[in-house]
């Protein structure tokens, strides 16, 4: 039996250790990617590596503050935190500062803050709060719509600020809802939509329709008792409409740079000359980062020894493309290590979430795992050329104060909730 005083420090040290590994290794790579010349002034706060050191230092203060609050505080004040967060996003339309085409920053003195990084934690709290309410039934359409609205408001505001990448992150809540009992057909629908979209772009709308006809009727004849002919035809019509719709969406709605990213991802361009030209223009980053990773080979070129990193061949390498530094300087060993640490961290959080006694804590933990996962999936996948280019950071790893603090808050609220599970009844 633990004494009351010990319980205060009963945090999950595995999670914290994994967190520290990522932050520390991230810092080393930022240092390598952003330093110039032979002499490094670690405390030069006008350089990214100097700033990051400061951010990390401040992060520890932030962690102490988060852990100091009572666990109940986060549940009780979740609605207020959510509303404050929405207001901070709305405020951007008036006070926002435009950086690289996105108005998602507040300029405070020499510093900038990105409220969308904090909105993820706030939304996670709100979703957890709503779902854990005794009156909520996720199989109820009305509740489904309510939750959808909670998630969509910040997502939509961020989209309006021209930060499509951060918007996609909100899709991660699907995992949370599904875990909490969202009907299965949403999953079927979601997966089908993705498959149809990719297939329609890659193989064309007509080919996709033909495949759909074969599959749907095949399924119908094999499962006549379960599926009616009407249902099958309806599914087919929707599918065909969608495959043509996706094409139209791609042609008319997407912006040129978004189209190009998809073109590169799905290898839609067959003309080698045009492909070569693409690699020099909008696919330059991707091409250079893939090349850097490739050149790292098994053991890497060594810390601070990457020629492409030193030569700053990968633009934005210390932010979204930081993984390419790992690839070049630490090779397969280092890159696989980072992948494994992320996988372990996410699984650890999932494991802890499942062990929670309160539904609020469980839902929140699930949301944390999902959000980290989607960032890891999109960012790392993009740098390796597996996923179309989407500009979101690698959690705990990429350069940036708002990102680091946003994820730290997200994670450590859960660490606090978890430490309190023994008091939850």
């Amino acid at each position, binding site marked *: 039996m633990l004494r009351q005083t010990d319980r205060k420090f009963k945090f999950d040290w595995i999670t914290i250790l994994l967190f520290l590994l990522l932050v520390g290794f991230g810092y080393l790579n930022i240092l390598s990617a952003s330093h*110039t*010349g*032979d002499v490094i002034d670690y405390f030069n706060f006008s350089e990214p590596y100097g700033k990051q050191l400061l951010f990390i230092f401040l992060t520890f203060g932030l962690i102490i503050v988060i852990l100091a609050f009572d666990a109940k505080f986060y549940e009780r004040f979740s609605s207020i935190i959510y509303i404050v967060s929405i207001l901070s996003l709305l405020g951007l339309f008036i006070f926002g500062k435009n950086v690289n085409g996105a108005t998602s920053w507040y300029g405070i003195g020499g510093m900038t803050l990105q409220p969308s990084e904090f909105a993820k934690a706030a939304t996670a709290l709100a979703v957890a709060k709503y779902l854990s309410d005794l009156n909520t039934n996720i199989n109820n359409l009305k509740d489904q719509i309510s939750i959808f609205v909670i998630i969509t408001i910040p997502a939509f505001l961020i989209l309006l600020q021209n930060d499509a990448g951060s918007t996609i992150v909100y899709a991660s809540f699907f*995992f949370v809802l*599904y*875990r909490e*009992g969202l009907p299965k057909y949403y*999953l079927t629908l979601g997966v089908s939509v993705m498959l149809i979209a990719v297939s329609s772009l890659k193989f064309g709308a007509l080919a996709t329709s033909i495949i759909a006809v074969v599959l749907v009727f095949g399924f119908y004849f094999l499962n006549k008792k379960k599926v009616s002919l009407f249902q099958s035809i309806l599914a087919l019509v929707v599918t065909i409409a969608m495959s043509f719709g996706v094409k139209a969406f791609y042609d008319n709605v997407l912006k040129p740079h978004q189209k190009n990213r998809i073109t590169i991802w799905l290898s839609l361009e067959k003309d080698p000359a045009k492909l070569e030209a693409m690699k020099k223009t909008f696919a330059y980053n991707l091409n*250079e980062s*893939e090349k850097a*990773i*490739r*050149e*790292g*080979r*098994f053991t890497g*070129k060594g810390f601070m*020894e990457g*020629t*492409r990193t*030193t*030569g*700053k*061949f990968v*633009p934005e390498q210390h932010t979204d493309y930081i993984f390419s530094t790992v*690839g070049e300087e630490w*090779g*397969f060993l280092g*890159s*696989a290590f980072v*992948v*494994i640490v*992320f*996988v372990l961290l*996410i*699984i650890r959080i*999932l494991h802890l979430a*499942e062990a929670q006694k309160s539904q609020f804590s469980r839902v929140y933990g*699930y949301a944390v*795992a*999902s959000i980290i*996962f989607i960032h*890891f*999936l999109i960012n*790392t*996948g993009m740098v*390796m050329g*597996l996923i179309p280019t989407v500009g979101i950071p690698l959690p705990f790893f990429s350069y940036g104060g708002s990102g680091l603090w946003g994820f730290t808050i997200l994670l450590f609220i859960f660490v606090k909730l978890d430490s309190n599970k023994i008091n939850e009844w």
Partner: protein
Amino acid sequence: MRQFLLFASVILVGLLFISRLFYLQVYTSNEHDLFEDNAIRKVYDYPKRGFVYDRNGELLVANQPSYDVMVIPREVEPLDTLEFCSLLKIDKAQFIKSYNKARHYSPRLPSVFVSHLSKEDYAVLQEKMRKFDGFYIQKRSLRDYQTSTAANVLGFIAEVNQGIIEKNPYYKMGDLIGRKGIEESYEKELRGTKGIKFIQKDRFNRNIGPYKNGKFDTIPVQGKDITITIDKKLQEYGELLMQNKRGGIVAIEPKTGEILSLVSAPTYNPNLLVGRPRSKNFSKLHYDSIRTPLIDRGLLRMHEPGSPFKALIALTALQENAIDPNTSVSCSGAYYYGGRKPMGCHCGSGRRNLNSGIAKSCNSYFANAFRKTIDKYDDASQAMDIWSDHIKSFGLGDFLGYDLPPGKKGNIPNGAYYDKWYPDFRWGATTIISNSIGQGEVLVTPIQLANMTAAIANRGYYFTPHIIKTIEGQNIDEKFATPKYTTIDKQHFEPVIQGLYDVYNKGTANFLRVPGIEICGKTGTAENFTKINNVRAQLTDHSIFIAFAPKNNPQIAIAVFVENGYYGARWGGRIASLMIEKYLKKEVTLKYMEKLVLEKSLEEEYDKPYSGKPFTINDGQKLQYLHLEPKNAETDR
């Protein structure tokens, strides 16, 4: 089961990413090659190529600076082509052509974009080069010839081609390599080793600093100066004598094997293959398939040796005790054997012994000597093997091993050779009697003939002919200082040498005597044939001559081969005498002979087979006329 969706997704993505990393970094990744890494700029520092001096210390080949504009296609950014082209003095079409060629070779490795800028263009361009990403100027060193002769000996330097780059990774696109002559043989010594600096670049193509503090950088090693055995004055004189003729002269110092001159005609001025006009001139020379100025006839022209070969027939016969110096034969103007068509003789009929046989070049005498040598053995095949070994000990029938591109083996038949020709083994001395007068199946090159002469002059040994005299700070190959002995005993040489001396004294070359120098020589005439419209046609005989002098302390052994020059003394003999006098006395007193050789041309003779009309051969009249304007040969072959 719902809690496993995310869990499974995470595991799946983790595995997928690790496989992708494995694919990128282990499975398809290549060795990190600094030369392929476009983040590292490679700056080459080319060392001075070694100078070449002649045997008397006269400078033959020096260097001059040259500037090439290089391009790395994938680093090229959009540029003001109009300005760039006008700076380089090229037009847009040329720009596109050069660019595409470089791109086709490799988008990431440097190629030469425009070669050999003038110093003025370089000065202007250097200022503006920063504006053109992907282009840079590479300084190189070109040859600067101090002579207009000996092109075939000196060789030239040329840009390496892809075949060479693949075989030898030292060379990179645009590098120069020695081709032909000593530039090829002593490429490694002459070129030195280039230095390289690795410089870290950033993505704007700016230099950041040395890569790994210059850990991999190397400093250039200067090329070594070499001295060659050629006597510049003699070489120049030989080429002068051979103008308007085709053929070769090879002169060797018998007591060392040093090649004093190696003349090939027609030749070209080595300065033609330097700098920007190089490629144009090179194609012109290369595709001149009639005059073939790029082919070194001294090393490569295989021909029947003709009568000079009789000296070896005599030596072999003496060694085999088939004859002795007093053996005599009565010549009736032809040699009758085995009921065949007799072999004619021009010696003027009479009783011939060894001395007069050589001096008068009596065919019958040597047919007899050869026949006796072969018939001494019961088995003709075995006899031919023994004979062949004797002949080959003079360096004939195989590569000599000199330090120039290897040339040709020639041919000295042995028993097996004829067994193959006459599978029923029904052959004997008379079947192959033509060999006795250096016609038949025997083939030699002029340098082999000169070396054979040196071996006779030395009374039984020779040093492998070589062109290198000294290399700065390095010993030359030991094999050049090791004598090679023939299989003929020393005492057999004196009577033969006396015969060769009498060739000048009272024989076929008696009008070629040089006052104050005792020369031994031998005339030679070789019939030859060509095909005109697929019909075999005989051309005027080749004029061949070998000689060495002075008789008792040989300083020079020489072989002269003049294509279609008619009889041996007519061209070959005159040229040999003049060369010997030039070398030994350093001046020429035989002014009339010199005038004759310089003024007469054989171009008309060479035009005959291409004229499309019937022509006469071996017509001795032509020496009476001057042919000041050699016509270009028509090329309707």
